[in-house]
């Protein structure tokens, strides 16, 4: 890969695409999607705080939503990156049971989403780009979270990110689970690690709903098309970031380095356009999402 990002960037994308084509052959075999799900959920995979540790030595964490509390499932703060300050917001699952319980397994509550909004608006005030690291099974489905306005917290986070005047890049680093993940992924660029997943619901929930049997999760995983390659094909993400051999969990530092390089290149690209054009492009991108039948077709 070129040492100077921005130079030969499209070439790099081409290379990755070729790589993906070769991966595709391997992934079409039975159960491949389910294997990816399991990889994406590995406890020893690098998590948001690992990327932060390896990439941003001067990271200053910020806490709290200024209304109710501080959600440990969402971490955020400022750091110097590529010569300027950026804001990082990510979901943190935890490496061991103790941390996982503390982080609520990366399932944010309304205060977590409000913290994300607060940090995004703070970033806008001081013209810092925002980088999000997506890794959650979904928003927390608890009674208190519901009464605290979970749905509205997510929709308002989406609105904040839709309007943000600063450049935004999202990286799905592990599990991108439903609306809880999307809340941090309405960004100018959405990248995904090779073994990450991103879907409308967990395969387990999908199988419980459609097959009426949670045991069909692997079949549901296949049907949902939730791998990075699938999403790239569907036009939902902009780039698949390849992981080191054997997967990201074997090489935290190397994975963080590759992610940092892509984010750096992506931010430079987006920063080159005016805020107005950036907003227009972001709107165009998300308004174009979806697939309709050609006009005049009847089922």
């Amino acid at each position, binding site marked *: 890969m070129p040492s100077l990002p921005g130079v030969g960037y499209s070439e790099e994308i081409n290379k990755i695409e070729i790589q993906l084509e070769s991966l595709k052959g391997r992934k079409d075999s039975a159960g491949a999607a389910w294997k990816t799900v399991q990889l994406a959920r590995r406890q020893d995979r690098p998590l948001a705080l690992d990327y932060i540790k390896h990439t941003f030595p001067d990271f200053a964490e910020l806490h709290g939503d200024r209304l109710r509390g501080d959600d440990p499932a969402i971490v955020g703060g400022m750091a110097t990156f590529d010569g300027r300050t950026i804001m990082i917001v990510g979901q943190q699952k935890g490496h061991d049971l103790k941390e996982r319980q503390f982080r609520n397994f990366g399932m944010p509550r309304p205060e977590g989403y409000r913290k994300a909004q607060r940090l995004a608006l703070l970033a806008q005030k001081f013209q810092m780009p925002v980088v999000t690291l997506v890794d959650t099974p979904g928003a927390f489905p608890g009674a208190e979270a*519901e009464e605290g*306005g979970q749905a509205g917290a997510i929709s308002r986070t*989406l609105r904040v990110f839709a309007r943000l005047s600063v450049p935004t890049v999202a990286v799905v680093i592990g599990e991108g689970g439903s*609306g809880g993940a999307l809340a941090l992924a309405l960004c100018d660029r959405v990248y995904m690690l090779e073994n990450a997943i991103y879907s409308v619901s967990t395969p387990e929930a999908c199988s419980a*709903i459609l097959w009426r049997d949670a045991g069909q999760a692997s079949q549901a995983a296949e*049907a949902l098309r939730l791998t990075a390659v699938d999403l790239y094909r569907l036009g*939902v993400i902009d780039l698949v970031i390849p992981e080191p051999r054997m997967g990201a969990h074997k090489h935290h530092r190397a994975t963080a380095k590759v992610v940092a390089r892509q984010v750096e290149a992506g931010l430079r690209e987006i920063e080159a356009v005016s805020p107005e054009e950036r907003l227009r492009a972001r709107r165009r991108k998300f308004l174009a999402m*979806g697939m309709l039948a050609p006009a005049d077709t009847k*089922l």
Partner: protein
Amino acid sequence: MNQPVTVQITSKEPPVSEAMPESLEPRCSECHASLTREQLKAALEVCPHCGHHFPLNAVERVAQLADPGTWREVGGDLQPSDPLDFYDSRAYVDRLAEAQLETGLSEAMLAGVCRLGGRRVALGVMDFRFLGGSMGSVVGERFSQLVAAAIDEAVPLVVVTASGGARMQEGILSLMQMAKTVVALDMLADHSLPFISVLTHPTTGGVLASFATLADVMLAEPGALLLFAGPRVIEQTTREKLPPGFGRSESSLVHGQIDLVVQRRDLKRQIAQLLALLEGGVRCDIEPIRPDSEVVPRGSGSLAQAVARAKKLALTSRGWLFGRDQQDRDPT
């Protein structure tokens, strides 16, 4: 959106005329009072005995809200597709075809421009019968086209929701409709056009977590289930039995999540009134009323005098409050 089919509303569905012979005397699923089809229709599909609100389909809803003869459909030619080639126990295309046949609708949202109480509005109405009112690509696109129509004609947006959440069979593209509707609303906000959402039973998952909760004013019908995750998912996660009424409109009102719970018979009038107020803020030529005697000209009198005047004012206003309070408590 992860809820396993949040609500079984089949038992609560109003007796369908063609399937239900008139002689069978249908009963209200809540209070078990016997009802005739005509009674129910006359009461806008609300039980006249217990006030239980039966679900309305999109066509009935439009008929209740739109002024007769003013409806012009938007995005009616959009047809769903099967982007993932999705197949569970049945093929998605078969499910779609069946839903279209059963409902007579092309998708889970009906959109159009019409008059509501004489006022022009862009009106979107969801239909829970169509695959649980789930939001797929067509719902997202129709919503965006409806917003575009609202902007085009400079009219407010009103959307009545009823949805189980995302359209699972369209996978990630369904999730992206949340982002799409939010971005569309952002453009509506650019034009300062009001948006009122009416949440009906049930509104859950991705619809609640996107456009439905971004309205300027949020109304709900009584007893509507309004949750991000379904009650079953919550019970499985927390291993606690949920109290009765959990996640219903009345509870959402108490928790500050919606503005008003509105009876169906008042809905049209309430929407029209709110729109009139929301749009009435532009003209503001009425002078605010100030009691002339209390206006202290700058520099007149001493500080002590001003303090005395302020004290007097505070005392009189407090006295007035006390007086009224006592009157309220003691009607004699």
